[in-house]
């Protein structure tokens, strides 16, 4: 059991005062099988004239914040405390053959999962991605076992390269480039699974990063994270993090699920104003104890698999800072 405090700050600075802004916030974690939300709150500055809450078709909690008065900055701070719960370990080898899983999703009984079995704009596969998937999904192979291998394959074959792709990059482009960030890795995995009509969901959330030995934890150096969840008709959903080649554990916090990034984007919105905007995002995930005090970092994640033999970041550098958030705003 671990308790994590997530602080996610989003700050827009407008070139000219905005007359009106309206944002959709997907910043509220909910209770899930593997986590319990102790507290969660969102503060918007300036104080919005409207703040509404509702649920979407994917089980996420959404907020809309609307500001009518002229404002030159907008700040959204979401802070949640989440307790990560241990989950029953799934034996991937015990899952159904993938062809049977696809057939089950196509049957009326599999409707809830079928929602995630079809390609979307971000996750449309091409021949190359389909071939990549089929090399791993050999006939009769258990679906979760193959998915676990796909997760490892993406981790091994793709370079983590912030700046190489943008928020708009689709799976086939990041596949061709063999590089990207966690969002792209998740989209490639989704595209591969869905090319075979296997249900696979996009998961957005956070991941606590552990500073290298001897270094202090850097506040705000974390970023929003993305991974996927795959389905077996008998065993249910199993989360996989292709960026880290692991099953999410005590250091992951799940914020939203959907079919792709578009269903889960933490903040989207519209601004009425004549100037441009600058966006800065800072995310901080800290392990805390019952009293809320920060705990010293564990030497290593408790349940994560052994560290991969070929770390993505070059040895000797400090990956957490080197890959600090450099969010891009689409204008």
């Amino acid at each position, binding site marked *: 059991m671990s308790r994590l405090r997530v602080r996610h700050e989003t700050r827009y600075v407008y070139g000219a005062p905005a007359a009106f802004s309206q944002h959709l916030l997907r910043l509220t974690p909910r209770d899930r099988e593997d986590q319990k939300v102790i507290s969660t709150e969102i503060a918007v500055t300036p104080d919005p004239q409207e703040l509404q809450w509702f649920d979407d078709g994917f089980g996420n909690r959404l907020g809309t914040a609307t500001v009518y008065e002229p404002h030159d900055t907008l700040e959204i701070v979401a802070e949640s405390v989440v307790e990560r719960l241990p989950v029953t370990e799934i034996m991937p080898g015990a899952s159904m053959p993938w062809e049977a899983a696809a057939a089950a999703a196509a049957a009326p009984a599999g409707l809830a999962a079928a929602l995630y079995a079809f390609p979307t704009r971000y996750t449309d596969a091409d021949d190359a991605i389909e071939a990549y998937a089929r090399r791993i999904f050999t006939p009769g192979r258990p679906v979760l076992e193959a998915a676990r291998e796909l997760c490892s394959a993406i981790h091994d074959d793709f370079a983590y390269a912030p700046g190489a792709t943008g928020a708009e990059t689709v799976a086939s482009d990041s596949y061709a480039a063999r590089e990207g960030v966690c969002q792209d890795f998740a989209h490639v995995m989704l595209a591969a699974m869905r090319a075979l009509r296997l249900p696979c969901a996009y998961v957005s959330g956070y*991941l606590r990063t552990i500073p290298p030995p001897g270094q202090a934890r850097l506040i705000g150096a974390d970023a929003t994270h993305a991974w996927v969840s795959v389905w077996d008709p008998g065993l249910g959903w199993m989360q996989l993090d292709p960026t880290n080649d692991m099953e999410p554990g005590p250091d992951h916090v799940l914020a939203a699920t959907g079919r792709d990034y578009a269903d889960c984007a933490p903040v989207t919105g519209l601004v009425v104003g004549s100037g441009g905007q600058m966006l800065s995002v800072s995310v901080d995930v800290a392990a805390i104890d019952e009293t809320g005090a920060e705990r010293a970092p564990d030497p290593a994640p408790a349940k994560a698999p052994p560290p991969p033999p070929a770390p993505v970041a070059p040895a000797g550098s400090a990956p957490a800072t080197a890959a600090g958030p450099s969010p891009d*705003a689409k204008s």
Partner: protein
Amino acid sequence: MTVADRLEEDLRGLFAHYPSDRSASGRTDGPAPAAAAAQGQGAVDAGLAIATADPPAPGVIPPALPPERVFDEAIDSDGRLRPHWRGVIEWAGRAGPEGYEAVLTENRRLRLESGVAFDPAGASDAMAAAADAFPVVIAPEEWETISLGVAQRARLIEAALRDLYGPQKALKEGWLPPGLAFGNPDFALWRRDWPAQDAPWLTLFEMDLARGADGRWMVLADRVDSPLGDGWLIANRVAASQSFAEPFLGARVRRLAGHYLALQQVLEDAMGPDGRVALMSGGGRDPRYFSHAYFARYLGAALIEPGDVTVRHGAAYVKTVEGLKPLSVLLRGVHSRHLDALFAPDEAAPGAPALSLAARSGRLRLANGLGTGAFAYRAMAPFAHVLCENLLEEPLILHDAPCLWMGDARAREQAMDEPELWRLERITRGPMTEKGAPVLTMRDRDALIRFLRRSGDRLAAVATPPLSTTPAWVDGALAPRQWMMRVFAGLTPKGWSVAPGGVATLVEPGCPPPPLAFGKDVWIPARTEDEARTAPSIERRMAGAHLRRTGGDLLSRVADDLFWLGRTTERADGTLRALRVVIDRMLSGQEEDESPEVLSAILEIQAGADERRVGMVRVRDAIGRLTADPHEPMGIAALLSGLRRTGQRVRPYLSEESWRSIDRLCSDKGWKMPPPPQNASALLRLIDDSLLALAAFAGATHENQTRNHVWRFLELGRGIERGLTFARAADALAGRRREPDETWLRAWLTLLDSRSAYRTRYMTTPAPAPAVDLLILDERNPRSLVFQLMRLEEALERLPSPGPRRSRELRLAMRTLMEIRLADPEALAEEDEDGVRPRLRALIHDVREALADLSDELARSFFAHTQSHAQVQAHQRMMAPPESPA
């Protein structure tokens, strides 16, 4: 031997283009060998072919028929004229080719006329001229069945949408495959499980309908997401009923007005006491803009664009110069997927509001609802039978043209086995438009199989089988041509009402239905007195209800455009006048007038100064930039293109004559390649032509424009820009004493077109104080600075003000006006020891600052919420790095 064998003598010529052996294998003696076959065809001819015992499966293409067996609307299989066509055919026979051509000319004129008034881009002109206009007559009995079928289809799609976004019984029972829902990009998943809505999904429904060569009707496409083609239907009917008045009245054609009256009633009921009905269009570049503009005017609805709406507290508002006005009913001419800035930011139109929030609260009635696109175009076709049997529990009346859903493995195989018969289309969105889109005849079969397996859920293989023919006017006689029609339905309190009529077009065999435009009017003869009754037209009813003196709300976006139209015309005027004064002087032969110092100063009132150059080089360079450089902000090239853009956007608000002057100015080819400064006389001619066009625009608006808010924003733009130009001119030419002073003052007077006024008053060479008095302080001189402030004050006084106090803009204008009025000409003309006129400079400085502030204040008060052109979508990316290696 022609088909006309069986026709009356005097009609034979009319059917000269019909095939020669349409009936009886070309022989008339003895019993016709085809009589037995004709028996089978008898049911078809009676118009009962719709509900046949064995409906065609959606994947079966009926075989092509020999030409003589192809159903024709006017001539039956025995070669006889069908009774319901007799009136129009006999009229055409009497009129003869010459008479018919005259009617056609009149018809085209009427079409073009409506296009001129409603289509800013003039896109409908070409279509109007091209489309065949010979009416189609459908027998009343047959129309009754069609109406039932169209209404049933609307109910079916409504039921299917309600289920898809709600309990999803069709998916759970397997009537609908999951791929058609979840693989469908127009299924707005984010709005699943929203609170149940009272409002129906569909208020308007259109269908493309055709009759097969075998006589059976079939659905070619369902138009549900943003139908609103009604403008074409009505405009087409207006043109046809006037130009074909004789046969139209003779046939007692059923009128459309009753249908739209019922629809209008529904909208008014949904509107509430102080709500508004608006019709949202994609704007002038939307090919359907004509229909949107025409229909909005017909219904008395405001014509708006996505950026004109904002959503607050779950309610939608229109942005007008009088503030936000509640919008209660929205006729949606823009696709669902372009209208939600929060849930679908990637596809949202510029300035699109978060319309979903208003839809969710139930406070905005949308016609049609957001997300209806899930069953648009052909998505219903492969499943219509099973859904109709299960959701409505009745048999389907109108069957679909062959359509295979490519999400189904067997359907994919069939389409690939018969690639020449089928074409691939997006199942909810129609023909694939992108270059290199896959086709079934693709060479690489394996790649095609893989592509269809992955992406087939959103695709359909569609075929248009051979269709029936209808008479079309070709070279002076009638020829049989394949055709289809668009029909229109609306939801009324008594259920679905189908407009009696439609817009028919000729189609190329095997092609997708063409986009709606002007076409052949479809006539349904009335059977009863009740059907024949003409309802009072909506326009007349509206006019009777309340006289509208103000022209309704003025949208902020339009006010913004009018303001900039005013500013741009004045800018162009300022630049042209500066050029003319300079070129006149260069030609004058008077040495002191030709001084490059004066000339540069005049030009640089408009053009940016280039300090690196001196003398005549500097003058020529400035002339060159102002006449030919598209990047010079105050240059003619940039101003004319700005003028054209803004002018087109506000064209519906200008008088026809005002628009024509702008159009003439902007289309003057002379400015494409303006003569070089050396060819002064040619340049002068061009300048004078353009100044005349601008004067004509000013005159036309002055004479013809109602003094409403439209006029006021135009006037404010003009007053501010002219004030700024005059202030810059005063500063540049009289801000300090220069030698010889007289030529500088003369330049100032000439530039402001006040030389003769000065001469009649003073009869002397220009002196500073009198010139300052005339050009700055004289309240009767329309080309004085004070006059500009007076017109601003007048316009501002009548603008809507938020409270009982005078608005900030008005107070600013009044203060500045007072400052000028209190100034003394002698004091303004005083010089200090350096020759500078400090008081004049100070006054000019204040005025310029005030005018710039005024422009900003206006933007804040009236256009602020229109700045959504600069809408920014806020994206945040997920980019956590891999966990650091421990």
